[in-house]
């Protein structure tokens, strides 16, 4: 186990900078998720930690060692790939024991280690099978087993659940989380799925276009997103973001005034703001609420998603109630003023 520190990491491909000076501190035993849309540089960053990509500038520390110039095998890391990357011509046991075999371990010792890892992952019955004889979920577990056997300081996961179907993904998510709790190792996990990030992480690192947007615990990111991007990215459905004008404790959106409990910092009366409210923080109110023109009603069983417009701007609401309103009807809603997020339209930074 070890802490991982990234110091001003940069990556340049053919004169194009793709990672712009990223600083992250990952504590010993922490589960950190790098999340962001495709092309944000999260996988590149992970591959730089693994030693599969060169670092153009900056320093990567694993434990107390700077590993910039170290080859992947000397960094004491293990990686689980999106494609699993199991050796097709080797059995499960050989796949899992390959790294130990390369280190020159004795056969009985390798066998014991492999069996120990197999037991953790329920793979005992599959040890003599070949990868092609396994299901997607089993392959994924073998890939994790291969990592566990090495007993590395840091586990790296590169979108390991993307190739699985939705149901299996939920199961494996739980298994990875349980594995982390059991092993207590430092784990760095890359995904584009913010639900995975929210459910698994101790700490989330949100990236966009090679820049670090925000680092924090899942709930801190959810409750206090630092900017419009994080506000829209974290949470499903995403936060409603409406442009309006701040005046006297309200944000005016069209001819509707929405109250806010907190005055924006550097607020001047009449300044333009982006008003953010999460779909689940909209509540149904009696008459006199904000009129929402309903466009689509999506019942999910547990809750109802209503997509519509407030003063011409698109709004989505999530309600516990079962709503039978038809498209074109009005729904009277209210927003909890304490749950409102305000952002500056130019810098897109949080201002409350």
């Amino acid at each position, binding site marked *: 186990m070890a802490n991982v520190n990234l110091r001003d990491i940069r990556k340049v491909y053919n004169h194009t900078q793709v990672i712009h000076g990223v600083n992250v501190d990952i504590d010993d035993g922490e589960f950190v998720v790098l999340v962001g849309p495709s092309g944000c540089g999260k996988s590149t960053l992970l591959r730089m930690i693994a030693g599969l990509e060169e670092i153009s500038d900056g320093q990567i520390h694993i434990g107390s060692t700077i590993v910039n110039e170290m080859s992947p095998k000397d960094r004491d890391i293990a990686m689980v790939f999106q494609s699993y*990357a199991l*050796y097709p011509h080797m059995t499960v046991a050989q796949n899992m024991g390959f790294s130990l075999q*390369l280190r020159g371990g004795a056969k009985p010792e390798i066998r014991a280690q492999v069996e120990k890892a197999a037991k953790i992952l329920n793979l005992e019955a599959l040890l003599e099978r070949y990868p092609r004889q396994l299901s997607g979920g089993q392959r994924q577990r073998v890939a994790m087993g291969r990592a566990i056997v090495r007993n590395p300081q840091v586990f790296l996961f590169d979108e390991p659940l993307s190739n699985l179907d939705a149901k299996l993904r939920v199961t494996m998510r739980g298994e990875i989380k349980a594995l982390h709790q059991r092993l207590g190792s430092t784990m760095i996990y890359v995904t584009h799925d913010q639900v995975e990030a929210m459910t698994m992480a101790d700490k989330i690192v949100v990236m966009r276009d090679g820049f670090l947007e925000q680092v924090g615990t899942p709930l801190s990111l959810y409750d206090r997103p630092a900017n419009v991007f994080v506000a829209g990215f974290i949470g499903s459905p995403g936060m409603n973001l409406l442009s309006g004008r701040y005046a006297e404790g309200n944000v005016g959106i069209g001819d509707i005034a929405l109250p806010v409990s907190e005055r924006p910092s550097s607020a001047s009366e009449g300044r333009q703001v982006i008003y953010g409210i999460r779909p689940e923080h909209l509540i149904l109110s009696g008459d006199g609420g904000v009129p929402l023109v309903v466009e689509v009603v999506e019942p999910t069983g547990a809750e109802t998603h209503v997509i519509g417009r407030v003063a011409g701007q698109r709004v989505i609401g999530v309600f516990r109630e079962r709503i039978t309103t038809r498209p074109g009807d009005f729904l009277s809603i209210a927003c909890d003023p304490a749950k409102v997020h305000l952002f500056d339209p130019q810098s897109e930074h949080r201002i409350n």
Partner: protein
Amino acid sequence: MMMSAIESRRAMPVAAPSTSRLGGRLKRIALHGAVLLLCVVWFTPVLSLFVTTFRSESDSSLTGWWHAFVEWRPVLSNYVEAIYLAGVGRSVVNSIVLTIPTVLGTVLFSAIGAFALARMRFRGRIAVFLAMVGFQVLPPQLVLVPMLKFFLALGLTGTFIPVWIIEMGLTVPFGIFLLYGFFASIPSDLVEAARIDGASEPRIFFQIILPLSGAVLASLAILQFMIAWNHLLIPLIFLGSGSLSPLTVQVASLAQTNAGGLNTLTAATFISVVVPLVLIVSLQKYFVRGVLGGAVKG
């Protein structure tokens, strides 16, 4: 009315397949006929050769080879004569000695070259690859004179060494080209996983890449076996028609001198044909799989 509509609807699907089934059958018969015809055209010379090898000289001089099916009087004397008297036995050994190292060397060097080009990043990689493609269009005859001078100067003519080297040299560019596509299609995740597991580049090559490339390596080996086994010009130039001459050279000189008669020659020819024939028939599935390996993801 209602009833008849239902009946006609029921009748329709029965009628439609019966015509299409007939068409399908005709198509199949035509296809089988064409394939059969090709087989006959290809197989007749081989069959005539095979039958003649078991006929006596006198029979052959009086009647055509197909008479063997009317009056079957097989003799083994043609083979005995070819193997012991006409030197074919010795030249089979020579052919094997010439071919096996050539095949092994070609596969090894092509694989190493293709691995470097497909999996390693170094300056001039594209230029080397293009040069390799370019070498394939050079006629082999172009290099024979300079090579002969070169090996004469080294005093290596009259040995197998120049033949091995030239045979390899002529096929390795194609081998690299063939294997490059396959190696490049092996997911880079596998190689990276091996690198993280602690494998060195040679180990990745021998323990990951080569075991995954069995079919394509086998097809290259078969191809090179056929080429080396059937080459006449190169061994003739570098080995002459002496005691080291392979089967092709031996059969050619037998045909020129007509020593031992026509039937001995047919036996010698059949021996030279049968080895690649058996090889390609028994290994054809690897050949097809290997050559198509890079094209379609398995």
